[in-house]
């Protein structure tokens, strides 16, 4: 029992962080049909925004967090407006073209951060807080923040999509853009909103991620690769799938680390995705063009 509780604690923290990132990624994919790989870049941009506010300018944690989230949203909106919308305007809507563009943006972000902040990892050890023991399970203050905040955010996010008119308009655009436009839904505005929401989620994830795991510019690619594997495992385009994909991957990672060897955790998580896709090509919860 103790072992199970320990494993659950090892699953929940990274699982929830990636669920938040992958949920935003799935939303942008559903609404815009763009595999927004630069979302991992937005996550670390937020992390460095937080580092700038908190560590360099010595702002209070909340001010630094707001700065980080604002930078993440502006970055996401900029990527959408200046790259994806421009490519659409010029009629370049091929999946390959969009993919190359979004990978390029990710690499540009990473290199800019490297040039500005250097390659040395940035630590926020003072923000992890005290350690709490719950029987065999140990959580820091920061991890408790993650355990409380991310489920609340995901619930609000799903309710926004399911219950509000804007959420329904987003789902309508995700399902069929032209039909949605015919009933008067501004699909361009919805695409912008999808990028804004996913960048907001990436911004929060970036702050929480940086405090939990430190920060360096090369993390952008690592986060992107893991995000896309988790989203695809759950069913790309499905928010529930993004959450399930993240948690199930982290479960395999934790079990591999415990019973085998930590150096094989990436292998086992990618193998899991591969096997699931052989059985369910659209992922665990994936259906064509489904958000929630």
């Amino acid at each position, binding site marked *: 029992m103790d072992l199970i509780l320990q494993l659950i604690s090892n699953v929940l923290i990274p699982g929830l962080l990636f669920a938040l990132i992958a949920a935003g990624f799935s939303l942008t994919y559903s609404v815009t049909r763009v595999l927004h790989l630069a979302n991992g870049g937005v996550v670390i941009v937020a992390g460095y925004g937080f580092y700038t506010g908190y560590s360099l300018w010595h702002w209070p944690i909340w001010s630094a967090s707001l700065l980080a989230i604002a930078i993440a949203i502006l970055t996401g909106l900029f990527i959408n407006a200046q790259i994806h919308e421009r490519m659409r305007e010029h009629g370049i809507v091929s999946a390959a073209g969009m993919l190359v563009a979004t990978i390029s943006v990710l690499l540009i972000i990473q290199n800019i951060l490297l040039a500005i902040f250097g390659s040395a990892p940035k630590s926020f050890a003072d923000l992890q807080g005290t350690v709490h023991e719950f029987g065999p399970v140990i959580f820091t203050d920061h991890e408790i923040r993650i355990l409380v905040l991310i489920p609340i955010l995901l619930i609000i996010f799903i309710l926004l999509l399911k219950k509000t*008119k*804007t959420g*329904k*308009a987003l*789902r*309508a655009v995700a*399902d*069929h853009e*032209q*039909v*949605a*436009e*015919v*009933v*008067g*839904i*501004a*699909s*361009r*505005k919805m695409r912008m909103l999808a990028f804004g929401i996913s960048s907001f989620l990436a911004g929060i994830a970036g702050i929480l991620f940086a405090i939990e795991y430190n920060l360096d510019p090369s993390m952008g690619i690592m986060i992107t690769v893991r995000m896309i594997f988790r989203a695809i495992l759950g069913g790309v385009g499905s928010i529930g799938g993004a959450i399930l994909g993240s948690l199930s991957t982290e479960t395999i990672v934790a079990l591999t680390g415990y019973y085998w060897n930590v150096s094989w955790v990436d292998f086992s998580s990618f193998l899991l995705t591969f096997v699931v896709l052989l059985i369910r090509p659209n992922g665990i919860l994936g259906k064509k*063009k*489904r*958000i*929630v």
Partner: protein
Amino acid sequence: MLTVNKLRKSFGGLHAVDDVSFKIARGKITALIGPNGAGKTTLFNLISGTMKTDGGSIMLDADDITALSIEERSRRGLARSFQLSRPFRNLTVEDHLLLALERDDDLFWRNIFFKRETKTEKHKHLREVLDRVSLDAPLNKPAADLSYGQSKLLGIAMAMIHPHQLMLLDEPVAGVNPVVRETISHVLRKLREQGETVFVIEHDMEFIMPLADEVIVLDHGRMIAHGTPKEIQQDPDTLHAYLGAQL
């Protein structure tokens, strides 16, 4: 109300719409007919904005809407149903009607400054529209669970509830059973009585000829006739190109 002037659209060497000009009068039902591949749906797509024109202009009253986006045309008063009924997955009948009814832009301000309809009032309004098209489905029913005929009726209800000046209906009775066909015929008669302007593509001549005030005939992308159903039924070009013995 709608003026189409020298409209053109080609796909490679195929002239899908070739120099087509006509006017649609307010308060009338105008039918667009023609054999398969005549360019009818392409013409509808050009008018509703789902395809870009190669040339020509489209005027809605005094406004040139040729360069406007689909949603802007929709906001100017173009409502459209599709030949293949395609409700949004995971949205209910109510969601569909509300998306067609309300505009995001005014919704925000209306919620702040004006009293909103209560849920009961709103449901009553939506129910009335469904009754007008004889769609007997619960508002909370997922649209994906509707039958083909019911989803056709929902498409027409959405076009009706959408604030509009002109309704474009793309083959409203294609593939539906005789009961739904009769219902849609009744709906169109009612719309005409109410002074609505309707532009409808239809293959089913027995269905459309008694309903239409005017008929436009396309063949190989060109308009070959425009007149009353009686004139069209006697038009030699139309008889030769398309209708043959059917009339």
